[in-house]
């Protein structure tokens, strides 16, 4: 029984991480038809930002404030990644709208450049981030322990999800985004600055990736190749759920997260991954546009 509960928690935990990684991608992929292969590197940027913030806190601020670095890190990771995203968008992505093949290649090249940049600045070896002390250990209910870090990440993921939902469906900006996404010409005709909306949405997507990176520092390795570990799963979550649909991405993440951990538990890690991929393939045979596909400009082809 306990193992079952633990496994379910593990599944949701993995799903929450996938959701964080994939949320930004759902926005950029669904919004603009941009296949952003550099999305993983934005996660990496967020992780390295956290590392830098941690070091700054350690060097310049008194010890008792150290734990607060994680709050600063979460905000700064979002901002730094969003900044990189804006620069990228204005220089390069702007010219790739509606051209999926080109955007794939160009963003792939950008991902390699960003990886090497990280290697040159921080070195090839992994760097370590110490989790804040209030996240040490776990919540123990009976014999089951729920790691505080993973609970915190779950909370962050839910907050991001709610934040994105509120933004998209309850604010003027969100309405503009959805308008541009569904019918660009009409939105432009009604006075929406589509270029600005594109720029902001892409930055937001990248910022969310940065946030994911910050959360991931407490779970795994931080190195130049961090992004490559998450990019495939992030894309899978988005595709399974349906590009452009936030609910779809949630579903996709849960499907892959829970499904993956269940298969892994029943067999082993390698086989588990194979089985979940097979399930995704089968699912896509019946629903090629994902479960919750919405029609938008980017998907008309």
């Amino acid at each position, binding site marked *: 029984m306990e*193992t079952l509960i*633990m*496994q379910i928690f*593990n599944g949701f*935990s*993995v799903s929450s991480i996938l959701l964080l990684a994939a949320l930004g991608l759902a926005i950029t992929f669904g919004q603009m038809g941009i296949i952003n292969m550099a999305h993983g590197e934005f996660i990496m940027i967020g992780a390295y930002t956290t590392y830098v913030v941690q070091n700054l806190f350690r060097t310049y601020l008194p010890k008792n404030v150290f734990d607060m670095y994680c709050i600063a890190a979460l905000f700064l990771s979002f901002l730094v990644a969003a900044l990189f995203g804006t620069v990228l968008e204005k220089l390069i992505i702007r010219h790739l709208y509606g051209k999926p093949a080109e955007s794939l290649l160009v963003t792939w090249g950008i991902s390699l450049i960003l990886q090497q940049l990280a*290697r040159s600045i921080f070195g*090839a*070896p*992994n*760097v*370590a*981030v*110490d989790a804040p002390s209030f996240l040490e*250990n*776990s919540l*123990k209910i009976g014999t089951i*322990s729920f*790691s*505080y*870090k*993973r609970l915190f990440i779950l909370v962050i993921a839910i907050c991001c999800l709610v934040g994105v939902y509120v933004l998209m469906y309850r604010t003027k900006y969100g309405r503009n985004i959805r308008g541009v996404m569904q019918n660009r010409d009409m939105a432009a005709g009604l006075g929406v600055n589509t270029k600005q909306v594109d720029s902001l949405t892409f930055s937001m997507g990248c910022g969310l990736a940065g946030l994911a990176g910050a959360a991931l520092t*407490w*779970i*795994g*390795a931080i*190195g130049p*190749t961090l992004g*490559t*570990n998450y990019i495939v799963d992030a894309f899978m979550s988005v595709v399974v759920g349906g590009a452009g649909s936030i609910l779809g991405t949630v579903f996709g993440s849960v499907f892959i997260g829970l499904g*993956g*951990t269940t298969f*892994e*538990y029943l067999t*082993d*890690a*390698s086989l*588990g*991954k194979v089985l979940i991929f097979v399930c995704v393939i089968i699912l896509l045979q019946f629903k090629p546009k994902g479960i919750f596909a919405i029609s938008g400009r980017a998907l008309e082809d």
Partner: protein
Amino acid sequence: MKKMKLWKKVCALTMTIALGVSAVGCGAISEVSKEDETKAASNSTSDGDTIKVGILHSLSGTMAISETSVRDAELLAIKEINANGGVLGKQIEVVVEDGASDNAIFAEKAEKLLLSDNVATVFGCWTSASRKAVLPVFESNNGLLWYPVQYEGQESSPNIFYTGAAPNQQIVPAVEYLAENYGKKVFLVGSDYVFPRTANAIIKKQAEALGLEVVGEEYTPMGHTDYTTTVNKIKQADPDFVINTLNGDSNVAFFKELADAGISSDDIMTCSMSVAEEEISGIGASYLEGHMVSWNYYQTTDTPENETFVAAYKAEYGEGRVTDDPIEAGYIAVYLWAAAVEKAGTTDIDAVKTAAKGITFQAPEGLVTIDGDNQHIYKSVRIGVVNKEGLIDEVYSTTEPVKPDPYLTTYDWAEGLSVSK
């Protein structure tokens, strides 16, 4: 509108020029760093005033984390030998190649080093997969490789000298020690490739002989980072100790997950075969504190040679750097080769191999001797515990260096394990 088009063209042109310049620049930089290469590309190994050697490690990709420091150690040894007059009165010239964590590239670069650079010997590789990829290249071209990393044994190529541990110098003693001190139930976790699979095959046979119970055996793909399920399985199986043969980034995720699940080394002891000082700094000492590792050398190893070595390494590369077993093994490989060449009086491969038999060297790890039968070296076994500074304290060591036994012929229980050469 016209202005926009002009601006776009100017931007595109500038970018193209910038890319062109940086491409040329990059080419120039790599040329400067490989100036040795361009100098005497067609010279044979010991013509002129220099002897050329090759270094072949992953300087990029997932294994760069571990291998760049081994290259640094080898370069340090070469620098020291050159400062002392070189080998056979000649200075050593180095050609460094990047295997890029890709086995096909390792094989390609090995061929290049042997056939077009005509190097006298190569120091290189880390993963068993890369070594297996270059083995046919060295054997068919009668080259010489010095391999500095602990591995699974079952090999003794005539063209490779192994300065890392054979399984009887690392894995087997570790299992014995843990069984004596912690209990009978063992869980095996490792990355999914040749080294962990072979190592676990050995351990399972040893477990049978020692009366241990293998309560779990989990393999994860290279680069796997989600260990929630694996740790859950470990918890369920409730072993007395875990033997960990994970490699690369996986170790980071695994130990963080273990700590998160509230498992410390007091609850379940783990012993890792591929975690050394270099990897500890990437994982974080707090996650590894109290856990064990099995090697033949630690930065804390107490010999006068080691004091000098650690000081020299830190002076050359920075106070923050650490030394570990593969770093030391790479360092001594260069010295052992140099000694063999001096004894043979030539860099000719066959003469060097014959001369190398029985050569001893006072290494930072203690006295090592090259075993002429299998081209491995005698090494002391040292089992250690990670401390909170991220260094390793020895808790057990053999009194004498152990004779290498890559095919485990001295163990009855290992019969049937050996793969034919």
